[in-house]
């Protein structure tokens, strides 16, 4: 079954939880016991409607404060597709959660309150989804019922948003606009009778058209070795298989390859998926590869096609999204995890801090605090084998790990 991962972004009270609840309800993904719980709670709160946002708010603190404090994962499905929503909070201070949600998503829904239109938060939500190169963005203009389903208002918001679009870095991003009322259900799953002027698809119909398998296929396969399989049994005495996941393209038996960092040349002898021999390993498949030559390979090494090498270097510049309450300083040392490969990294220079709102104001700073985004140069103790993030989403990204707390403190996108 096809799986589509979706991120959602909206400001407080934009009706994000309600939209998700509505998607679940209208695709009949809510079970009767959950609907019953929502009914009870809605009545308790004195509402004369079903508050679908109750379907998603998870932790005690969230229900107390009526906010979402962390990424929650929500599941629903149609006949054609399984959907996984990374529901991320929209307040300013939670940039880190939005970056996290967008990193695993193939599409994003940005909510706009039709009464408020494009606000500063919208700029941020769009900036981050564009920075992360999320393939498709759906701008859901919500609460249309509160502006009398006005076409004029919809067009006004759309043209305000188009000004942002003209400033975007990743121009190929697919962007579509849908007028909805999550509360009343207009254009979420069912086509609305209140928006005869809107000729496009409903939200769910649009999601159904997205081909999640075809996304992020750059045609450049990268195979980071996760684990070396050596059974040492009689039957597989000399077997040495390299286990990993294929990113960016396909690998086939007979392909001429180079192993990094040793630069050793070899050829793919076999590809196994469990007990089956396969000819081609497609993108995102977790396979085991054997080579024709006896090469010394360990975790963190990378197998690539001989005619298509990544950059091998001990330094690079990247856009960094800082996620820790401790600051990042010039000279700071971190563990840098690039795919499954870990090296030590030293902050060489913070070029400038980027305001993630298309204001175009870059600041010179000495350190980064939580939720800052900046251009940073690093020096590494060992070379990594990378591509620019814009040409290879997986092989162009990394995380930083604090050597004391072991926490993941930043995400980086190599320039």
């Amino acid at each position, binding site marked *: *079954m096809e*799986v589509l991962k979706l991120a959602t972004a909206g400001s407080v009270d934009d009706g994000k939880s309600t939209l998700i609840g509505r998607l679940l309800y209208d695709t009949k993904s809510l*079970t*009767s*016991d*959950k609907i019953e719980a929502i009914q009870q709670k809605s009545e308790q709160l004195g509402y004369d409607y079903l508050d679908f946002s109750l379907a998603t*708010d*998870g*932790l*005690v*603190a969230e229900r107390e404060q009526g906010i979402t*404090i*962390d*990424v*929650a*994962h*929500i*599941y629903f*499905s149609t006949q054609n597709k*399984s959907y996984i929503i990374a529901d991320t909070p929209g307040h300013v201070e939670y940039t880190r*959660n939005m*970056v*996290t949600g967008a*990193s*695993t998503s193939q599409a994003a829904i940005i909510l706009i309150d039709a009464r408020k239109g494009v606000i500063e938060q919208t700029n941020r939500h769009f900036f981050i989804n564009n920075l992360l190169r999320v393939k498709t963005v759906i701008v859901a203009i919500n609460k249309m019922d509160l502006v009398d389903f006005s076409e004029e208002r919809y067009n006004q918001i759309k043209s305000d948003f188009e000004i942002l679009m003209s400033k975007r870095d990743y121009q190929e991003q697919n962007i579509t606009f849908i007028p909805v009322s999550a509360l009343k259900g207009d254009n979420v799953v069912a086509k609305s009778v209140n928006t005869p002027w809107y000729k496009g698809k409903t939200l769910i119909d649009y999601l159904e058209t997205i081909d999640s398998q075809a996304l992020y296929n750059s045609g450049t396969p990268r195979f980071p070795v*996760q*684990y070396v*399989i*050596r*059974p*040492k049994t009689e*039957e*597989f005495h000399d077997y040495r*298989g390299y*286990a*990993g*996941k294929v990113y960016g393209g396909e690998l*086939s038996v007979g392909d001429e390859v180079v192993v990094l960092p040793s630069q050793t040349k070899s050829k793919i002898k076999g590809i196994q998926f*469990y*007990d089956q021999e*396969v*000819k*081609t390993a*497609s993108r*995102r*498949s*977790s396979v*085991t590869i054997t080579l024709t030559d006896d090469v010394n390979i360990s975790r963190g090494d990378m197998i690539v096609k001989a005619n298509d090498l990544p950059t091998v270097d001990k330094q690079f510049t990247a856009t960094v999204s800082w996620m820790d309450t401790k600051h990042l300083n010039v000279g700071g040392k971190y*563990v840098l*995890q690039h795919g*499954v490969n870990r090296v030590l990294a030293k902050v060489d220079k913070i070029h400038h801090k980027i305001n993630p709102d298309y204001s175009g104001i870059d600041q010179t700073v000495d350190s980064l605090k939580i939720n800052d985004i900046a251009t940073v140069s690093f020096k590494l103790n060992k070379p990594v084998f990378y591509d620019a993030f814009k040409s290879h*989403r*997986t092989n162009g*990204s*990394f*995380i930083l*790990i604090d050597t004391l707390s*072991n*926490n*993941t403190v930043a995400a980086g996108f190599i320039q």
Partner: protein
Amino acid sequence: MKNTSQINPLENEAIYIFREVAAQFEKPVLLFSGGKDSITLVRLAQKAFYPASIPFPLLHIDTGHNFPETIAFRDRLVKELGLELIVRNVQDSINQGKAKEESGKYASRNTLQTVTLLDAIEEFKFDACIGGARRDEEKARAKERIFSVRDDFGQWDEKNQRPELFDMLNGMIEHGQNVRVFPISNWTELDVWSYIQKENIEIPSIYFSHTRATFLRDGLIWSADDDVVFREEDEIVEDRVVRFRTVGDMSCTAAVLSEAKTIDSVVEEIRNSTISERGARIDDKRSEVAMEKRKQQGYF
């Protein structure tokens, strides 16, 4: 020869996670309950390391209140696949005075498992415990990471979790900490059943329709076969045709009326079901925040 173009993204993600566990940790263990989710984990682990065998043992925290069918199944599976099985008993924790048996009508040993689990983690110095929890099961689990760090006391700090970006999993921990790993985080109940169907995975017989002596309480059907579940005198025992949709401790797992005798009919039934899986788990009905509380204390 074929290619892997018709891939199941969830299966490939789970295999990737298993390999990360084997590479990043010194002493992983797979928490095995004998239920369908942990049986699915075993199959995925086989796939991840083939042709080598699974490079870690299974750990069963036995409440002593398991369905006999589950235990028989567990022992057969372990033998057939040549796996190492470690069993630790909640009864021992009770005898040692570390856990207190609950009393009354709703008494269950489900919560007590946490004590035994944390002791076993310390005894064997496990640094990664792989579990079959899924995010679609419950609200608190929806916020759970794939690699979820627990402190020296096995506790979950839900407000201070590591962000998980792209495919990158950070399993770096300090001595004494451990990580709970959830390879099928992103699977739904239907995904698990469809996988069992497609892979033809054997599961315990109680998942299929059978006749059982039962009684009704709070609208749920309870097994009356044994002494584990406390029954009032006015709760009348009757034979019903039932199956179990989720298999936990007998004292907290209710049956559902079902004629589904084969995996195909079970999948069909789940597809059309209007009640959630944990709707038949009394451990979650205790309060709206039952799972969150248990997780903070070290439950998985």
